[in-house]
């Protein structure tokens, strides 16, 4: 599968993972998405996106850090892979180029 084709929700998930850096696991990503985008993804939808991204090689994951409120279960932390970072940067570049092509687009600044 060509790695650079990702959906909007997947993109947001990847951005959250990037923001959270060392602290990105299921619940924290969910919280981050709620705060930043004002939507409430179900954890099913979230994990489904995470799994897909991992399969595409844009994220990698490892288990670490059991806590009491997880009844001793470790967290599955996610990190952007190199490809993942490239894809995000590529998307950003692409958007920037395209937006500059729109004449008279006024940003509120």
């Amino acid at each position: 599968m060509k790695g650079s084709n990702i959906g909007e929700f997947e993109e947001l998930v990847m951005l959250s993972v990037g923001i959270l850096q060392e602290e990105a696991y299921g619940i924290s990503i969910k919280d981050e998405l709620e705060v930043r985008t004002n939507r409430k993804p179900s954890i099913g939808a979230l994990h489904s996106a995470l799994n897909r991204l991992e399969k595409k090689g844009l994220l990698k994951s490892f288990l670490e850090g059991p806590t009491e409120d997880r009844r001793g279960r470790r967290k599955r932390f996610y990190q952007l892979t190199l490809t993942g970072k490239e894809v995000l940067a590529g998307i950003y570049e692409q958007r920037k180029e395209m937006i500059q092509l729109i004449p008279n687009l006024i940003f509120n600044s």
Partner: protein
Amino acid sequence: MNKSNPPKLAERFFRWICAQSNLEGLEGDLYELYERRAKKQGHRKANWYYLLDMLTLMRGSVVQINFNNSKSNKMGMILNYIKIAFRNGLRRKSFTLINLFGLTLGITAVLFISVYLWEETHYDRYQTNGENKYRLYDRLERESGDVSLITTVPPPIAEALEANFSQIKKAGRIYFDYGGTVFQIGDKSFSETNGYYAEFDALDILDVEIIAGTRDGLKEPRSFILSESLFIKFFEGAPFNNQTVQLGSSTFSIVGVYKDFPDQSHVNPDYLVSFELLKNYTPEERMNSWLWHQFTTYVEFEDGVNVKAFEEEAQRFVKERSAKELEAHGISYTTHFQSFHDIHLHSSAFEQDTFDRSSYQNVFFLGIAALIILFIACLNFVNLTSAQAIGRAKEVGIRKFVGAGKGQVFVQHCIESLLYVLIAGALTLGLLFVLLPEFNQFTEKEFELVDLFTPPRILAYLGALVALGVLAGAYPATLLTRVRAIDIVHGLKIHRVKVGKHFAVFNPRQILVAVQYVLSVGLIIISVVVYEQFQFMREADLGFDKENLILISTVGSMRRDLESTRQAFSEYSNIKNITFSYSVPGGIVAGDGIIIPRLNNKDQSANVFVTDHQFLKTMELELIAGRDFKLQNASDHSQAFVLNEEAVRTFDLGNPEDAIGEVIHWKHWNHQDSLKKGKVIGVVRDFNVKSMHKEVSPAAIHLLDSYMPNMIVRIGNGDLKKTIEFLEEKYSVYAPQRPFEFTFLDQTFDDFYRKEEKMAQLFGLFTVLTIVTALIGLLGLVNFNINKRSKELSIRKILGAGRLNIYVLLVKKYIFLICISLMISTPIAYYMANGWLDDFAYRITLDALIFIKVLGLILCLTLIVVSWRAIKGLQTNPADKLRTE
């Protein structure tokens, strides 16, 4: 802090379904969310959200249902079982087809019957407080010892009970509108026959729901309320607007419309008439008579009344009130209460019950028949599956060799049979779809697919299928678990592997076949007996010729001058005779009774026919002594009676000739004190006025200037269509606005036997079903046996055995089996058939011929099935079978 936990079951399910590699992280997330919510919203809500979250995780990409789960591969094995089941099924096509066909038949029969039974056993459950509602019935006893049960009771009982007993909340009466009513609306007229005069309390008890107008309008005597469907029929969808209808010359108003009664109601009137009208035209003394059994009476008790105990109290009370009146008539009765829930199924013993009733025995019998069919279908399945189990022994051996335990082998074969049952269940649904219209026609009900598939029913259906699959699969599965792996790896021949004792004379499979035969032979014998009894009753000599008699209700203008009416209708050549009569054979006959002064002064129970001088000629009753009535003889009119033989016998009048001249008194209907005194002028051969369930009872025929509601026409064998047209034309002269309606008398009699006819049809159907299933089973078994013995047979052939020789060898075992089952089932069937026949006053005798016929039929069918397969087996070239060695 008290720690709450998410639902255990859900946790375990999640652990089971989720792939090991993903489990920990996901479970941790779920717990973390749970804890957070438990703190904020309490653990009830947290539990719900936990389940909801889990549900959102149920997608392939997340839980990754992994059949190679490292813990176990149950899922994988189950999928493998299903795959193997399909492969096996496809390899043995005829076996699979036979098995599926048998199961489908069985399940279909049971499904239909259970739907029907459910319907039948849930009548009259819609009323509010239904458990407190009862119908009254009386047990009438005459001095002659005659006992009858009647659901219409005398008019004063309702009011008297309600006034004197606090246990009774309400009591109300309805009175059947005998003869029906002709409604005239504009230039159209409708003849309706299903109506009642009804009191308000009865409306309450029956939960009549008024949807337009008011029922208070019924206080006005000339008023009706109509059922919704009748209202629509009358006014073609016009809104309710206090419409009026013409009944002859008087105008009645329609004061309300009520919602149609549910189908499952014992009473289902199309229209209800003001009870005041009935009171207006019935003499006061009649309405207070404790003898006039004509009112269906309902009571509603207060909560918690012990009805059984109250019944005795009520009986004493009624006896006290009615004693004086009853004594004079030589009649006594006791009053009973029948629960609404019992009305539909427990009313077959009642006389003059116009309601929708069925019989408990029928329902019971149907249930049994359904179970027998299902049982036979299961036996077949078990039989065939265990027979072919021998072919699966190698597979089972290998499975065990590589580590399968007994439990796994058992589960495998249960799953396999479950698959068969489920597929048969699906086929049944297809059949249901196709057969539903036929079923509706036969049961005279209106089932719709939507009604049949309510969620609880679907669940029950699935549950029953699963239970059936496991039950039917258990025996063959157990057989197979006994296969020893060691036998297989030693390279023993498959058919030497011990799977039950196949070579004994009475191995389990043969016993199963025998049981099937016992059941089906029993059913066949009973159904033949039912059919023959039914034919016997239809064709029995009633003492008069019921063919070619047409019955027409008279209208007022016809009754004005009977002789000229008779003249007018007799003009057509194909009309032989016409008589006017109050009562008609086959209809309700006045059982008023006669008095024979020489015996005593009491009423003797007899069917009294009030009619005219043409009655004997028209009915073609045979005179055996004395003479017929003569029109010219004035005394024949005022003082003559004709009796039947049975009356002569019952009243001890000696020979028919001696009875001539016997003095007979008859009480006038309208003024009970005035007697019609007369003498017997003739005796006729016995004729049956009711169904053949009953013995011929004493009958007296006499003439009277009375209201004659019936015209009976005897026609010849000429053109029936033209005759009817003629009658219609004449009728329209007298009653231009009434629709011409007539019935054939033989139809009326046939209606008596409708129950038996349905029974005969049902029995026939079930018998065919059981025979087919049993024969299918036999075919499968023979098939299997011949395949198994193909080598043996080939060697026999090579060594010179003749075809006949081998044929006999193959067939004799089955003949033996069948003979044994015949010996078992014949006496049982004989006993049961005899018991059924005992209900009839006139019945066929069970002779050997019936049994010989049935046995012959069974033997023939069996031989055909067995021979068909055997001959096919004989024609194979022995070399083909042996070459592979």
